[in-house]
């Protein structure tokens, strides 16, 4: 029914404490995930978030993490490419690939969710798709034209995040991975067509397509408890869903959870809801879980990663690296 896949996690580095403690906990999270057999950890990039964003520099954070880990892949999910100089990005990614013995995965996006930050970086929001493409080609050239193995290697470690079929096709044409799962994208009506476009466009016979699908997964004793735990953190998302015209009027926690496609509850609840997810194990090569909401503690996050690795992912055919 399902094929083997890699298990990863993604974090937004939410400010649950002082920045220094948050970074220290981030390192702890990667160390714990590596021990549990996770193949990759993805760090999102958030710029200038009015004092709350602690992750403007995922590669720097991954560089610190590389000093404490040996196996887990160090990934950006995603880097906002229009704000980067492709040469500097290639240099940073290469150095991290050297320091980490080729563990870098580089996720790239056009920053559609960062609309307020564009003027600060002197980039026109309306031109972000064109700028993304130009910088993607420039970045790929840096990797293709290098004589260094740590640089060349990165050409096969690129991932793109897109919300349009053109974007999904571009990722396939360029031989890059595709990342799906932004909360605002409906799995059946948006993500599934993107996944199919990507796989149908893929032509490279020597390399396999790479499809990473991101899902919020919140294990708890039961669904009701999970909803109670999530309620305070989900309130801002209700307003956001209204702004995105995905909801209107009074919206309940259960509805928000449903709209955001959060798999929650007991192991059985989650297993059953993952089975019903229309865009998941039939398509993905990498299952990437998000287990933190704004007020999650580091211990909550590690516990949830453990439940997923021990009791949920194996049901779908996942094998931990340590059990190989």
């Amino acid at each position, binding site marked *: 029914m399902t094929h083997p896949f890699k298990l990863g996690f993604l974090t937004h580095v939410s400010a649950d404490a002082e920045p220094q403690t948050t970074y220290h906990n981030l390192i702890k999270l990667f160390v714990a995930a590596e021990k549990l057999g996770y193949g990759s950890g993805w760090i999102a990039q958030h710029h200038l978030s009015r004092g709350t964003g*602690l992750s403007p520099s995922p590669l720097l*954070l991954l560089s*610190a993490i*590389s000093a404490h880990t040996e196996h887990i892949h160090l990934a950006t999910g995603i880097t906002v490419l229009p704000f980067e100089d492709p040469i500097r990005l290639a240099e940073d990614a290469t150095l*991290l690939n050297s320091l980490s013995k080729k563990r870098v995965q580089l996720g790239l996006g056009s920053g559609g969710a960062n609309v307020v930050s564009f003027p600060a970086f002197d980039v026109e929001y309306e031109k972000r798709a064109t700028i993304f493409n130009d910088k993607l080609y420039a970045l790929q050239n840096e990797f293709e034209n290098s004589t260094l193995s740590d640089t060349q290697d990165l050409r096969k470690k690129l991932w793109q995040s897109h919300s349009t079929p053109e974007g999904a096709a571009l990722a396939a044409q360029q031989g890059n991975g595709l990342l799906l799962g932004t909360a605002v994208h409906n799995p059946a009506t948006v993500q599934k067509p993107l996944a199919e476009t990507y796989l149908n466009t893929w032509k490279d016979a020597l390399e396999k397509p790479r499809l990473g699908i991101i899902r919020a997964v919140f294990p708890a004793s039961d669904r009701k408890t999970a909803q109670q735990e999530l309620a305070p953190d989900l309130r801002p998302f209700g307003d956001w869903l209204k702004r995105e015209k995905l909801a209107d009027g009074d919206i309940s926690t259960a509805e928000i959870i449903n709209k955001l496609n959060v798999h929650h509850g007991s192991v059985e609840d989650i297993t059953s809801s993952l089975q019903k997810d229309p865009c998941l194990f039939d398509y993905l090569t990498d299952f990437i879980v998000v287990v933190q909401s704004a007020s999650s503690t580091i211990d909550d996050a590690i516990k949830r990663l453990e439940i997923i690795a021990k009791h949920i992912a194996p049901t779908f055919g996942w094998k931990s690296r340590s059990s190989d």
Partner: protein
Amino acid sequence: MTKNNGRKKLTFGFLNRFYTPSANDNRSSYHTGLSLLKQAEQTGLSTGWVAQHHFHTETGALPSPLLWLAHAAQHTRTIRLGTAIIILPLEPALRLAEDAAVLDILSNGRLELGLGKGFDRESFEHFGIPLEERGRIYDDHLAKLSNALAGKRITDDLVLSPPTPELAQKIWESSRNIHDVALRGNGLILAPQPPDKPSHSLLIEQYLNFWRDQNSQKAARIAFMRAIIPGADKKTVESEIGSDILRYVRRFVPEASANNLQTYLKNAGVFWGHPDEIIEDMSKDTALQYISHFAAQVQTFSTHEDQASHRLRLYTEQIIPAVNSLFGEA
């Protein structure tokens, strides 16, 4: 100008330019850099500085100093982590501010942010930035960087996150525009001066005068970065580093000859020889009494790790105590 006037106690550091003759050996140079930094910390040096080179120019293997220091910060606890320097015109200013802020927090406030204009034409061409405009771009990027680090609004109500207001007080500039550096309240990094340029003593005097006018309540920060190559004696050291020095000089003076090696060494501000000879030579450098920090570079292009470690030990065990007793009492 009186001794120690307005300056801090003299501290000592170490500068690594990550010289790596073959780019294929970059990985081992990062490893070596880490073990030298740990040695520097264990022997009590206050700061480990690293230089930035793009595209392996001058065989420098480190294009991303802040990323390397983020890694190195996890292997050290107390030593301050400096850049000497980051080529500011080639950096997107706001991205640099973000990286510096994250590193300062990751390292428990240990970052010292040294900046320069750069000079390498090849690097600027690759980035598509006109070398001739580097002065203007430098000023523009420095203003953006300083504003962001100070926590000022960037656009609308957006500010740099994470906030690190102290970092704005830890900016250094390697620049001959002494007046601007003092005006901005930044530290001054003095690299060796070519003989046709104003002397260090003159630059320092001007800087301290401007500084006192602008920042009377704060101590001035002046750092010297010099090559210190200790060994058995002058002749032995000359044979160890002679070919590297000629290779360096020939970039600017293609006809440079081994017969003039000692002149080149002096012009490049190198102190070399037996530690006692180096101490003797340094005691004659009157500019040293006005600085707050001295950082030694002990490697040339082809220095091996063991040799670098040995020289670093001679520097920390023999040269620093003597220089400190000559110039150090603040």
